[in-house]
């Protein structure tokens, strides 16, 4: 049973790669890249081997080493192996591996090539850690590591001020979420005395009321972590700015890692979330989905559109979790990983070809010159829009179905409307960037990307097509609702229709509406016609509903103001007044006291006698 070692190997291979690159191979670009790619691809292969050998629910569910024990605080470093984590393992290593390979081509000209791969491997390691963590502290450790890896990667081109700022913003906003997360962890530990998921689950199963009145608070605090990491409203602002990193990084962040972590974590700790908390979570998710979709409609940067679409899709997933549907959520997370990675890499390919031009209004008519990119991007668009039979259709529909089955019609309608909006902005992007007339000189002279970039696109495109019907959903279901019958391939192909035909129909109607609207508006447009039609709303959408400005004016301003006040107090009251008073007072009293040393003998004699008089008065005078 040497296979027990495999999860550890899968987890630590990327770390070894990162460490090795940093310490030894910074100068050898290709070696570095191969180390990094090798680590993740090996991880993928080993994951497959492991799953093949042990199935989705290995008999030994945890593999543990004690990391820290202090009295009642017991922290393990353990791996949790179940369908949820193993599937995520595959996604992270698989999709991540494709992105790694793609990066080899994309980043080839960069001077810090080795450093890039070191960071990528670190990022992969951190994400794998989140996936495999079996307790809260371990999860939090990797949670933080993901944060810092994203910080490093977003700020990869640190000489660009905007990149530095974006990295900083991502880090701090994530930290805001982590603040709540850690508080939640503390609260759960305080109430239940353990950090291990299995132990916690057993306790809660044994006594569901053990959390008492704090249940909702604790659940929502934990959710804060997901809000930060998965960029849910109101902490969604960092994700679009994270575009400042190289495009493969965006692909990694948006598709397989980081943002997925929040949803994954919610599914992992689902047993801790009570009904009230879930309700809040569902609405936050739904609202984020709608908000992001609206903003995406008016963005012109190709990566930003994709970024907001990610936000929107993450909203779906969170909403699904909130609707007590972890299976649809994870299902959508998986398919989304495929097509969003595809889309980002495709966008990267375009940007690469366009010499770092990201404005869609400067592209156009790319299908001839970049066929692979064009077709794969189209597949990604269709999948994201939820067009059957692409993978996105199945996953999105399962979420809408979940809403219906929970009887939450408001969220159902909201979800369907967002699906329509998704179709609208994606086809807007597609029409403007890939079809129509070339809008600039650069767009006329593009070339297809090299094979090392094209092949990951092709592979991902295949999964974007078939991702919905290869049993992903069933695998998750085996985790969250064990005992359900496994479906055959044919059943899963038509599963949405059999399960909730109404949902499918409404959803498809919205999607069609979105597509035709986009087609009507943007098929031949040279500039965006929408702002004139929508007026102020379009401006608001373009400016992301002014969230950045709002935070700038409140949170950041408040902190800077408090900091200024504190600094003033420190400088003038503590340092200046208190210390100054003591210092000045001492000095002054010294100067005053020695004034009696007039040098005049008579004064001295007088003071002498005065001293005697005073002493006499106190000793004998009473």
């Amino acid at each position, binding site marked *: 049973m040497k296979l027990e070692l495999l999860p550890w190997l899968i987890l630590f291979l990327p770390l070894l790669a990162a460490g090795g690159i940093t310490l030894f191979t910074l100068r050898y670009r290709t070696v570095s890249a191969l180390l990094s790619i090798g680590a993740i691809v090996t991880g993928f292969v080993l994951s497959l081997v492991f799953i093949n050998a042990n199935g989705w629910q290995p008999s030994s569910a945890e593999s543990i080493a004690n990391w820290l024990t202090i009295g009642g605080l017991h922290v393990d470093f353990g791996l949790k192996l179940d369908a949820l984590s193993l599937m995520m393992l595959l996604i992270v290593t698989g999709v991540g591996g494709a992105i790694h390979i793609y990066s080899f081509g994309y980043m080839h000209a960069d001077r810090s090539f080795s450093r890039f791969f070191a960071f990528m491997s670190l990022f992969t390691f951190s994400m794998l850690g989140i996936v495999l963590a079996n307790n809260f502290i371990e999860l939090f450790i990797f949670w933080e590591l993901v944060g810092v890896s994203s910080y490093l990667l977003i700020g990869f081109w640190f000489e660009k001020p905007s990149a530095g700022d974006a990295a900083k913003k991502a880090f701090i906003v994530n930290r805001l979420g982590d603040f709540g997360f850690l508080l939640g962890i503390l609260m759960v530990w305080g109430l239940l005395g353990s950090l291990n998921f299995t132990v916690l689950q057993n306790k809660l199963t044994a006594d569901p009321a053990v959390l008492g009145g704090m249940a909702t608070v604790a659940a929502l605090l934990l959710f804060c972590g997901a809000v930060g990491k998965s960029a849910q409203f109101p902490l969604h602002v960092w994700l679009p700015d994270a575009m400042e990193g190289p495009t493969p990084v965006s692909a990694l962040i948006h598709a397989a890692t980081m943002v997925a972590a929040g949803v994954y974590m919610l599914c992992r700790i689902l047993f801790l979330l009570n009904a009230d908390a879930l309700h809040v979570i569902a609405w936050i998710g739904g609202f984020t989905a709608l908000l992001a979709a609206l903003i995406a409609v008016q963005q012109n940067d190709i990566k930003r559109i994709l970024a907001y679409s990610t936000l929107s899709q993450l909203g779906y997933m969170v909403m699904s979790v909130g609707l007590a549907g972890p299976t649809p959520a994870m299902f959508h997370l998986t398919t989304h990983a495929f097509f969003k990675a595809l889309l980002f890499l495709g966008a990267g390919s375009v940007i690469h070809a366009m010499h770092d031009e990201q404005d869609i209004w400067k592209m156009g008519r790319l299908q001839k010159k970049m066929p692979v990119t064009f077709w794969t991007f189209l597949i990604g668009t269709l999948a994201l829009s939820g067009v059957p039979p692409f993978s996105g259709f199945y996953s999105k529909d399962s979420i809408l179905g979940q809403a219906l089955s929970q009887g939450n019609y408001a969220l159902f309608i909201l979800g369907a409307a967002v699906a329509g909006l998704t179709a609208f902005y994606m086809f807007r992007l597609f029409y403007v960037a890939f079809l129509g007339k070339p809008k600039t000189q650069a767009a006329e002279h593009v070339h297809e990307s090299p094979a090392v970039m094209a092949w990951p696109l092709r592979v991902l495109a295949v999964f974007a097509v078939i991702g919905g019907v290869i049993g992903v959903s069933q695998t998750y279901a085996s985790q969250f609702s064990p005992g359900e019958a496994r479906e055959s391939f044919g059943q899963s192909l038509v599963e949405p229709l059999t399960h909730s035909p109404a949902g499918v129909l409404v959803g498809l109607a919205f999607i069609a509406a979105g597509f035709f609207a986009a087609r009507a508006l943007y098929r031949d447009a040279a500039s965006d016609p929408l702002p004139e039609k929508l007026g102020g709303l379009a401006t608001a959408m373009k400016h992301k509903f002014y969230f950045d400005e709002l935070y700038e004016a409140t949170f950041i301003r408040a902190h800077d103001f408090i900091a200024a006040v504190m600094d003033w107090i420190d400088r003038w009251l503590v340092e200046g007044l208190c210390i100054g008073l003591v210092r000045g007072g*001492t*000095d002054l*009293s*010294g*100067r005053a*006291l*020695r004034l*009696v*040393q007039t*040098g005049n*003998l008579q004064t*001295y*004699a007088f*003071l*002498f*006698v*005065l*001293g*005697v008089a*005073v*002493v*006499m008065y*106190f*000793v*004998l005078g009473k």
Partner: protein
Amino acid sequence: MNASLMSLEIWVIALGVVLMLADFGFGLAPERRRFLAYLAIATLGTLLITNLGNYTTGTAFNGSFVEDTLAVFFKRFFLVAAMLVLFMSVEFSDRIAGGITEYYSLIVFALSGMLFAASANDFAMLFVSIELITITFYVLTSFQRGRLISLEAGVKYLILGALSSAFLVFGIALVWGTTGQLNFNKLALVAAQFETNKIFLLGVLFVLVGLGFKIAAFPFQIWAPDVYQGAPTPTTAFLAVGSKAAGFVLLLRVLFTALPDIAKHWADLLIVISGITILYGNLCALPQRNLKRLLGYSSIAHAGYLLLGVAALSVSGQAALLYYLAGYLFTVVAAFLVICVVMRHLDNEDISALAGLHQRSPLLAVTMTLAMVSLAGIPPMAGFFGKFLLLKAVIQQGAINHNHGYYCLAFTALVGVVISLYYYFGVIRAIYWSPNTPDLSPIPLSGPVKFSVCVCIAGMFWIGLFPSVVFNLATEAAKALSL
């Protein structure tokens, strides 16, 4: 009569007379006169080893002269101090226009006065020994009569000294008049009856005024800065060490041998005086730029620290006082030695004259630094363990008596130490990192100076690092007080 107990004093007086007559008899050339000083030092050293190495305790002259561990402790102290001061005087001799041999002999006579003070056990001896010291110091202070400030210092010391003598004498008169006893031991037996007799208490108070003047305790400290500044440097050193120690030994005898009961009642007075003395000395020193004057203020502060040991009213307090004095001896003499050498051609003795000393003479720079560090009470120098013991004694007393005054006193001492760090470090700063150093010529050091400086450094380290010996001696000495 057990006059053999007094052999040390007799030898010292003889030495003084010999020194005085030697110059007449042989008409030594000026540059040879320093050999007289070396002779004196050698004699004193021999006496220190032979006479005090193996002493017998006892009393003589109807108990007016006592040779006990306390007396021996102080006699050793005074001998070492006098030897170091004599070294310093040799270094200083070119600045004393007339009668350097007389200067040496006066130091030896002052020493004899201190030795008598160490053994004084009745008020008559107390009075005459204190007067012998004081009158010698009038002369020693104004010895540089070419310098106005030396004379001015002499006059100030004279008038205020005479004033304090008048109080002392009047006090002795009242104490004797009410009790009929001059001998300390006999007084101790009857003093308890007079606890409420106001005339008696007035007398005690006046005696304390006289002694307070000698140790420069507040409010009788006013003379110290002027006299320290004006007097020739060796005199100042001797004044700071010897005269102060003589004041303390007499104070200890009066308070704890003669009047232990009264002392207990006056704990609060002692606490207040000690605290104010510490604060006054340290605060006034803060803006001071003249180095000798600075040490004058600092010596006031140190009188305050020493008074902690008196105020503690316990054997451990008195032992701490003695221990502290021992460390203080080497420290202060070291500081004045450096001043004496460095300020050779300077009249103002400003701290800035130390600028660049670390380049001009690393040895002197290190000496001064160590002296300041020790005065500030920082390990591993002598001052640290001394202050440690003093504070311990005070806190101990506070714990025993539940008198919060002791805790306040400890805090006052603490504040004083912190304040003092400022000016002590100011001196060190002047040595090591003065912005402008006009004079960088190396300072030549004579062998004896090097020797005495090294002795001082060794003393500071020895007492600081291996306190057992001195501390045990001090404890033994302190125990003699209450026997």
